[in-house]
């Protein structure tokens, strides 16, 4: 809402000085329309090709000549894809909840200047953001902790991020102290104040972190590729990465010939897979939109 108001006053202030449409406004609008088109077109082309019934690339880059839903039926009849979907959804849900819990609790404590040893905790949190063990020691560590080849290898390493904590911390610092003081006067405990007073007024920041965590979980393929083996823990984004890496050289080989004989276009199936993998995470945005832009801005400006 804050942003809306700021923008509102802005456009009013602007219009006072220039009522007529200048050449700049036209050019600006055209540039932004073109930019939006360039950003959206690759998505459109992928969706279009996922419905393509031809055995080759769709000959037009505007619209398909023949349509089919066959690629989607093939995708959803693939057992690995189903496992991947389930794992991706699970890790996104569990990962988002744990990250929100751990980060917001830590951020609330760290936002209080009377937290003992606060400086030490800050140091402990900040050092790993600038220096880390590197890929191999990280892997060996996860292995010795017994996390590799378990579902928790997706969750534990992504429960805490310094940047997320800072956004939440800045937000908690901006919660009016009178609100908290009043609750304390009524005899509420710190935990109660946190859950009933602080969290409800911090929804924008929480939504921002939820969005960050969900996007990062959904798109993570690296951990599936290097920390797990077999198909039990496979995720959608690793299936995709593997598919796109293989297709570079598999083109026009056995796979394609088999596809031709069964009269479907493997390219269309790949695009259908892409669409299936992108729609859920893109759908998350409209739900969180009304919170997150504000949350992100508050955190980033002060931080």
């Amino acid at each position: 809402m804050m942003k809306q108001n700021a923008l509102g006053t802005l456009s009013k202030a602007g219009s006072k000085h220039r009522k007529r449409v200048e050449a700049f406004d036209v050019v600006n609008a055209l540039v932004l329309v073109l930019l939006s088109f360039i950003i959206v077109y690759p998505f459109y082309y992928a969706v279009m090709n996922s419905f393509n019934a031809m055995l080759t690339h769709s000959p037009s880059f505007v619209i398909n000549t023949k349509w089919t839903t066959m690629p989607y039926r093939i995708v959803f009849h693939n057992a690995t894809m189903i496992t991947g979907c389930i794992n991706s959804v699970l890790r996104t849900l569990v990962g988002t909840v744990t990250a929100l819990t751990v980060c917001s609790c830590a951020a609330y404590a760290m936002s209080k200047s009377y937290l003992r040893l606060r400086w030490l905790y800050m140091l402990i949190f900040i050092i790993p953001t600038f220096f880390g063990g590197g890929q191999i020691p990280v892997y060996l560590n996860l292995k010795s902790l017994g996390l590799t080849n378990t579902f928790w290898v997706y969750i534990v390493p992504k429960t805490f991020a310094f940047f997320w904590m800072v956004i939440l911390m800045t937000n908690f610092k901006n919660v009016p102290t009178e609100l908290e003081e009043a609750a304390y006067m009524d005899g509420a405990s710190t935990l109660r104040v946190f859950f009933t007073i602080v969290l409800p007024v911090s929804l924008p920041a929480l939504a921002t972190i939820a969005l960050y965590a969900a996007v990062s979980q959904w798109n993570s393929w690296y951990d599936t590729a290097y920390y797990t083996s077999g198909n039990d823990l496979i995720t959608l984004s690793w299936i995709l990465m593997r598919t796109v890496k293989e297709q570079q050289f598999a083109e026009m080989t056995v796979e394609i010939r088999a596809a031709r004989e069964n009269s479907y276009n493997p390219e269309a199936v790949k695009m259908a897979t892409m669409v299936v993998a992108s729609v859920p995470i893109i759908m998350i945005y409209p739900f969180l939109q009304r919170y997150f832009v504000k949350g992100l801005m508050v955190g980033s400006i002060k931080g």
Partner: protein
Amino acid sequence: MQRKSKPNSVVAGHDIWSQITLQAMVWPAIIIVIFISYFPMYGIQIAFKNYDIFTGIRASKWIGLVHFKDFFSTESCWRVIANTVYLAFLKLVFCMWPPILLAVLLNELRSPKFMKTVQTLSYLPHFIGWSIAYGIFYNLLNPSGGALNVFMQKLGLIEGSINFLAEDKYFRPMIILTSIWKSIGWSSIIYLGVICNIDQGLYEALAIDGGRRWAKFRYITWPHLRPTFVILFILECGKVMSGGDGFDQVYAFGNALNRNASDILDTYIMRTGFDNARYSYATAVGLFKSVVNLILLLTSNKVSKMMTDESLF
């Protein structure tokens, strides 16, 4: 009761229970950071050892700087480093200003509805990972019937077809352009936030003096955006040896055909470390990478402090 009797002398919530609660709230994060981020630092020692899976980290033999010497004497070493630094440099030059430009242009729009639409559309690519993005571009750039080739053929710009994904010379432009495509909208949020908070009186004062658009940007908008830009720039400098944090993207877009341009330190580490199981060697290369990154971050921070008064710490 006690609290109520002297509300001004003891600040509410500062008692011992409150302290214990707060400590209990921060410790889960501390434990996770220690286990996940600090434990691996202990493993760095295998860069100076001959690590063997069966003897373990501690019992493996110390061999000094052998792995570092090995790395710097390989043929591919300098090519990989050059690729990494060059890619990061290109990203610093070309990927940092488009979000600022977008934020400024969005702010000049008169219709809030139009503005919101453009914003929402420009965020789309942020939500998908590089595996999906690569799949989409693979399809778009395909030499046999992909939209871009067909489009360029119809315009008569090219005769045959170009395989953008399999040639060295197209690799870097492709990485830069797709980077901009993916991040321009999302990165503009932070700048737009700053612009929205600029005092409108400043612009009005300038407008009375007959200030034009460029003057507005030069003397009001940019000075407000500069602190944010400088901070992001410093952070980006600390990622130079990681190719501008581009592992996911480079892994997706890189292949054997454009290896001469697409092999960066991170892909090299993963290949030698995981595919060839040379743990100690890859750790040594990784350590070299992190140390240089840290030095670059601290240096750029210091330089920025002297030149612009802005710094991380």
